């Protein structure tokens, strides 16, 4: 039974041990009640299924049984002694008793020992009311501790408070090992251990502090701890929450479900929700802990306007701000033409909010100048997968990886960017699946505790297509194609053309080695493993898409999967790891300038007729401007007005100086955001945004899973973002009248075939639903292309390797590639306003020891990083994670300005920027760059807010 999603305080059922997946059932009797369970399930879990909770401390169903606490003893007919129910599998015909006088005595004896070495400060303990030790003392009827409390104990152990989010108090530890096992089994980091022996056994993060250790602060240990040993500092500060609401994380595309645990409208804790299908009770440091930005003092909660960007902002009413925005857009369109304005939707916002903004553009602006930040991340995924498979989305659900035998990770760094999925992936690898990593850097997956890639294809930046063609060459020329699959599922002519193409000698690993830098023998071995190792799955990220051949790479990946028969069942597939929480959704909702929701082109008469009929307005049948085109036309003087919903293009988009030149050339920039971000420095109207805690709607994750986002506090600015979009459209002369975001989803369902069956009622009933969800698939579609591809026959595409124009040379001899790290998120607007800065408070430049020595650079030195686009200064970190000739940095900190250096190069099909390849030079310096100095001044001059006018006392 699914618990209510808005109960007072949601407590999921804990079966004590995992319920095993088995087609066979066994029936046993527990306390006289017959119960049937999947074979392999423990007696403890079987008892819980029968409605009987056996006392336990070291067991919890997210972890394998351990059998150490000796509290879950039971009696089994025909067996001697009192076996631990957690480690005893249920068997057919077994007769179990969980409550006898003998068992009660044994359990009390165990509890006496625990309590004799546990502080009796329950009334002042932060876990009071949420402590399993306390619960078990009550459950076993403990009334006395015969040993007293004066014996040897651990009460004086020093607390470790180094982690900014949780505290470790060894005095309260019962050494149940749940935290250590959670770190190993759930997270896969192996940061925790038990030091010492016997009575001296203690939990420790190695010979260091928590902050100084390998700990990634995912919170799994805190979640698993049955006492107050590991506990959130927010709970210590505020006390136990009194109600909780299930909602969805607003960070990466994994889309974890959390219980927002509240005291009134104050968030006390984000606890990962066990019934969340994407995360199944796990979390990362961002979703679990980094939510303080939502109420950060930097939040702008009042609308503001100004005439010029050099003016101070002036706080105004919502009505005045919206009226100003509308009148300016209308003025501009009247003077410069209908196509002189546009909007950018946000992948941080809900489906409903995004849908309204693109509707505003099409129906109120009456053009198709709407784009979304997927332009700069996964637009090539949309193009590539629609060409080959027929739909713009990944093929699997996350749990599919549990069935994979070979996993190819290319251009993705899941442990940093999609950490909860990475934990699932590492679990499968520890169980024996083989791993191939294709990445210019030695990412953590290449070699980490109990995980080692079978092959690390450490290619040069920009050579993805060369590598994939070489892999395909081996598969075709060595007879490793799954002929039966291809014959049945794919277009024969296209396959034949492709096979001839990749079989050419120019595509062999030996020929491509000059481009990839990867030894041909490694490529051949990896290809054989992928093609013959069983279920083979490909996971990829922005290291694939953010290239001049990003779309080609996606198609080359799809080709590989089809050629080996690895699409259409569990454990296989092509899986884009989406960057932002709702980047899938923002694309689904019609945010691209050439298509409506559901990826239907604006020139399609039947589709346009449907939208025109429901929206009551004539729609343009011509594609609109993409973000880079908008900026280009702004610089040239033709594009004059932009509505930016929850994006910060002045920091996130490439070639910053071109972006800001475009913004500065516009006459009306409207920014809707939580903060006065970099883009807002160039804005004329600021509309306060709402954090995910203030939103009501849906996000769609990388699995196409539509999750509910539920409001837990009122919007600090007083309005939901969908209301603001509605009011702006209305002020523009196109009335929008919605009372609730559920009505917007109903409209989406009416207009979008893949969403036809989606409603809030269905999501609430099912927990989540994966599109397509319609008459053919009323409960959604976890796996796509099972019997046939969406487009019919799978289409092989020819993927000629075309080297990027961005080459290292005499002036710029190194190649820069950019990316993300675990503790920060994208432009850092959220995470920089949290204690995650404890791990990463500035962007640094990773440089290989060879290149560093050549330039006299030492770790910690300030270095100038220059490209043909611009120059910045940042500190160097010497590491062999990068190969010689390659440097790497992140773009999380606005003051660094990493995108000042990146160029305007972009993907041939989608204009997705080539963030991953920039020719640069590095040299020691002792000063910030000119751009950084100017930016620091503008941080002040373009962000001034006028003091509120004093109202005379009456």
């Amino acid at each position, binding site marked *: 039974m699914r618990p209510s999603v808005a109960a007072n305080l949601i407590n999921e059922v804990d079966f004590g041990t995992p319920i095993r997946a088995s087609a066979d059932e066994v029936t046993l009797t527990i306390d006289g009640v017959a119960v049937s369970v999947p074979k392999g399930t423990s007696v403890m879990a079987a008892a819980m299924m029968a409605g009987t909770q056996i006392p336990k401390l070291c067991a919890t169903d997210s972890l394998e049984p351990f059998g150490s606490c000796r509290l879950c003893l039971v009696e089994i007919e025909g067996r001697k002694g009192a076996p631990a129910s957690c480690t005893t599998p249920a068997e057919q015909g077994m007769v179990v008793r969980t409550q006898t006088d003998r068992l009660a005595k044994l359990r009390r004896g165990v509890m006496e020992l625990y309590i004799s070495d546990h502080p009796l400060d329950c009334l002042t303990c932060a876990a009071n009311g949420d402590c399993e030790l306390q619960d078990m003392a009550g459950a076993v009827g403990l009334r006395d501790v015969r040993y007293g409390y004066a014996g040897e104990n651990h009460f004086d152990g020093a607390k470790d408070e180094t982690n900014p989010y949780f505290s470790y108090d060894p005095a309260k530890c019962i050494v149940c090992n749940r935290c250590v096992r959670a770190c190993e089994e759930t997270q896969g980091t192996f940061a925790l251990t038990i030091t010492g022996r016997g009575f001296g056994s203690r939990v420790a993060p190695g010979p260091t502090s928590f902050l100084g250790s390998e700990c990634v602060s995912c919170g799994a240990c805190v979640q698993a701890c049955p006492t107050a040993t590991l506990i959130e500092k927010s709970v210590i500060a505020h006390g136990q929450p009194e109600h909780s609401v299930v909602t969805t994380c607003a960070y990466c595309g994994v889309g974890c479900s959390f219980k927002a645990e509240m005291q009134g409208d104050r968030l006390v804790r984000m606890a990962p929700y066990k019934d969340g299908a994407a995360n199944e009770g796990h979390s990362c440091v961002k979703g679990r802990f980094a939510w303080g930005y939502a109420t950060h003092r930097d939040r702008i909660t009042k609308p503001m306007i100004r005439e010029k960007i050099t003016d101070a902002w002036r706080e105004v009413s919502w009505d005045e701000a919206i009226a100003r925005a509308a009148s300016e857009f209308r003025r501009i369109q009247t003077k410069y033409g209908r*196509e002189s304005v546009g909007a950018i939707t946000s992948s941080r916002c809900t489906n409903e909010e995004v849908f309204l903004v693109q509707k505003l553009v099409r129906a109120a602006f009456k053009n198709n100048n709407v784009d979304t930040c997927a332009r700069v991340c996964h637009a090539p995924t949309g193009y590539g997968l629609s060409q080959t498979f027929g739909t713009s989305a990944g093929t699997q659900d996350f749990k599919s990886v549990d069935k994979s035998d070979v996993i190819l990770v290319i251009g993705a760094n899941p442990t940093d960017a999609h950490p909860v999925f990475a934990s699932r992936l590492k679990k499968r690898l520890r169980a024996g699946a083989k791993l191939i990593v294709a990445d210019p850097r030695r990412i953590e997956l290449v070699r980490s505790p109990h995980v080692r890639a079978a092959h690390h294809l450490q290619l040069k930046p920009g050579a993805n297509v060369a590598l994939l063609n070489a892999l395909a060459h081996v598969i075709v020329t060595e007879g490793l194609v799954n002929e039966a699959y291809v014959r049945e599922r794919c277009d024969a002519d296209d396959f034949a053309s492709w096979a001839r*193409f990749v079989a050419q000698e120019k595509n062999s690993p030996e020929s491509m080695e000059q481009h990839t830098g990867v030894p041909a023998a490694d490529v051949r071995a990896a290809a054989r493993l992928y093609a013959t190792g069983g279920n083979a799955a490909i996971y990829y990220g922005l290291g694939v898409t953010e290239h*001049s*051949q990003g*779309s*080609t790479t996606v198609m080359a990946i799809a080709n590989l999967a089809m050629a080996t028969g690895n699409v259409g069942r569990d454990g296989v597939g092509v899986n884009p790891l989406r960057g932002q929480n709702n980047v899938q959704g923002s694309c689904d909702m019609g945010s691209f*300038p*050439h298509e409506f929701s559901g990826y239907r*082109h604006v*020139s399609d008469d039947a589709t346009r007729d449907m939208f025109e009929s429901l929206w009551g307005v004539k729609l343009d049948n*011509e*594609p*609109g*401007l*993409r973000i880079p*085109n908008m900026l*280009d*036309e702004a*610089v*040239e003087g*033709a594009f004059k007005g932009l509505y930016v919903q929850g994006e910060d293009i002045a920091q996130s988009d490439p070639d910053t100086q071109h972006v800001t030149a475009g913004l500065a050339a516009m006459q009306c920039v409207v920014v809707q955001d939580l903060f006065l971000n970099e883009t807002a420095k160039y804005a004329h109207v600021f509309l306060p945004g709402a954090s995910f805690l203030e939103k009501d709607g849906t996000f769609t994750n990388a699995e196409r899973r539509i999750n509910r986002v539920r409001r837990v506090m009122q919007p600090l600015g007083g309005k939901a973002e969908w209301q603001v979009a509605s009011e702006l459209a209305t002020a523009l002369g196109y009335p929008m009248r919605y009372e609730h975001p559920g009505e917007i989803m109903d409209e989406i369902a009416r207009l979008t075939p893949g969403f036809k069956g989606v409603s809030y009622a269905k999501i609430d009933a099912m927990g989540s639903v994966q599109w397509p969800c319609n008459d053919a698939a009323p409960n959604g579609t976890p796996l796509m292309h099972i019997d046939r591809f969406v487009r019919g026959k799978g289409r092989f595409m*020819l*993927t*000629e390797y*075309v080297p990027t124009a961005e080459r290292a040379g005499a002036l710029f001899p190194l190649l820069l590639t950019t990316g993300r790290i675990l503790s920060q998120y994208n432009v850092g607007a959220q995470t920089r306003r949290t204690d995650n800065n404890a791990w990463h408070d500035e962007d640094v430049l990773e440089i290989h020891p060879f290149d560093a020595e050549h330039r006299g650079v030492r770790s910690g030195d300030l270095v100038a990083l220059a490209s043909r686009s611009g120059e910045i200064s940042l500190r160097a970190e010497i590491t062999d994670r990068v190969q010689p000739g390659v440097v790497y940095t992140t773009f999380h900190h606005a003051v660094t300005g990493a995108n000042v250096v990146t160029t*305007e190069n*972009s993907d*041939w*099909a989608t*204009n997705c920027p080539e963030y991953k390849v920039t020719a640069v030079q590095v040299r020691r310096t002792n000063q910030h760059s000119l751009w950084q100095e100017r930016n620091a001044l503008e941080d002040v001059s373009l962000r001034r807010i006028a003091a509120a006018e004093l109202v005379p006392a009456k």
Partner: protein
Amino acid sequence: MSAQSTKLMTMAGQIADFFRAYPQDVAIRSIAEHINKFWTRKMRDTFLDLPEIRNGTSDPLLVAAAKSVRKG
């Protein structure tokens, strides 16, 4: 040539580079389809008005594809 024109020419060249692996007739048709599908009226008009497209001195694939690119 304006910066915008230079950029459009680069974009068109990249599109041609992708479809160059296909038979010529398929490549020409695909290039035109791609431009018609994703470029705005103004971008297409600017492209069609580029001297090297008009006088046929550009990449032959682009020159041929331009004949099927819609005017705004």
